[in-house]
């Protein structure tokens, strides 16, 4: 099995130890859509031992420009089922736990206490707030991602030790439905997956207290500092 991961084990600082750590890790992923596709694919391929996937939606045709876990044949079918089937084909060695429910304060406690981190691949403010509240309650790192048009954002919130999602995003300002295309979701989700792996194997600089703003219209990536908001309804 280690042959499968030989190319990443060869990365200095990753090694067999890092790979073993990944194989024993549990990650909660909320959403198997545009961001979920690259996040789930890369974590599965990298050998994360256990992935708990919250996803309650069914596949529709408007998903297919970016949610590459699904094909035309999947339209009308539960995303979580199709996603886990595809991911298991990709790597049968991990454990995939489907949760066909919206992520909420009521079910967060079922899996989050035993998880190593939670990845936000949601598509709405309310779910992201629920993720932030749960991450704070169970002291888990939240890897947030979001995309709209040619803009993207990635943020790693170290719950209990710094600003949280709501410190940065005070109010709901959704544009419904948010405009999204595949390559942008791929960029943001890939960065989320990379940050998640770094956290799991304790590699490199985990950049807390900052968010990465991405503007692919101009080709600019910028790290901006964030600070705790006092009082914050989530983390104060």
């Amino acid at each position, binding site marked *: 099995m280690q042959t499968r991961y030989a190319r990443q084990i060869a990365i200095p600082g990753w090694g067999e130890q890092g790979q073993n750590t990944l194989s024993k890790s549990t990650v909660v992923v909320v*959403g198997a*859509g*545009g*961001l*979920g596709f690259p996040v789930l694919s890369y974590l599965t391929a990298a050998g994360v031992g256990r992935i708990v996937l919250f996803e309650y939606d069914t596949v529709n045709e408007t998903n297919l420009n970016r949610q590459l876990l699904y094909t035309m044949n999947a339209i009308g079918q539960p995303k979580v089922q199709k996603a886990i089937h595809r991911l298991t084909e990709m790597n049968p060695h991990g454990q995939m736990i489907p949760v066909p429910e919206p992520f909420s304060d009521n079910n967060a406690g079922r899996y989050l206490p035993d998880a190593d981190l939670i990845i*936000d*691949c*949601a*598509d*709405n*403010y309310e779910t*992201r707030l629920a993720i932030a509240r749960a991450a704070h309650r169970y002291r888990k790192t939240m890897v947030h*991602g*979001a*995309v*709209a*048009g*040619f*803009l*993207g*954002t990635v943020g790693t919130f170290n719950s209990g030790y710094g600003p949280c999602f709501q410190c*940065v*995003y005070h*109010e709901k*300002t*959704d*544009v419904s*439905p*948010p*405009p*999204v295309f595949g390559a942008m*979701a791929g960029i943001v989700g890939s960065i989320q997956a990379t940050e998640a792996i770094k956290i799991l194997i304790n590699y490199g600089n985990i950049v807390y207290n900052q*968010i990465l*703003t991405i*503007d692919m*219209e*101009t080709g600019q990536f*910028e*790290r*901006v*500092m*964030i*600070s705790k908001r006092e009082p914050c309804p989530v983390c104060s």
Partner: protein
Amino acid sequence: MTIYFKGGGLLKEYLKPDVDAYTRKVETTQGKTIREIMEQINLKPSLVSMAILSGKVIPMSYMPSEGDIITLRPPVQGG
């Protein structure tokens, strides 16, 4: 005083940039907040989820100084 708002994505259409493709020059008075200056130029605050100055996220209650270049980010909430 003169400040500058920069914005991309969906915000460009509402910002009406006049310095370059992304930047709008605004003449305003000191003591106004970002939110108030946006209202002055008919830019709805609900179109903006974040304001950034010198590499830091700043609150909409921040009062700019002469020459400030403030990046406004539209809502980025898709997934």
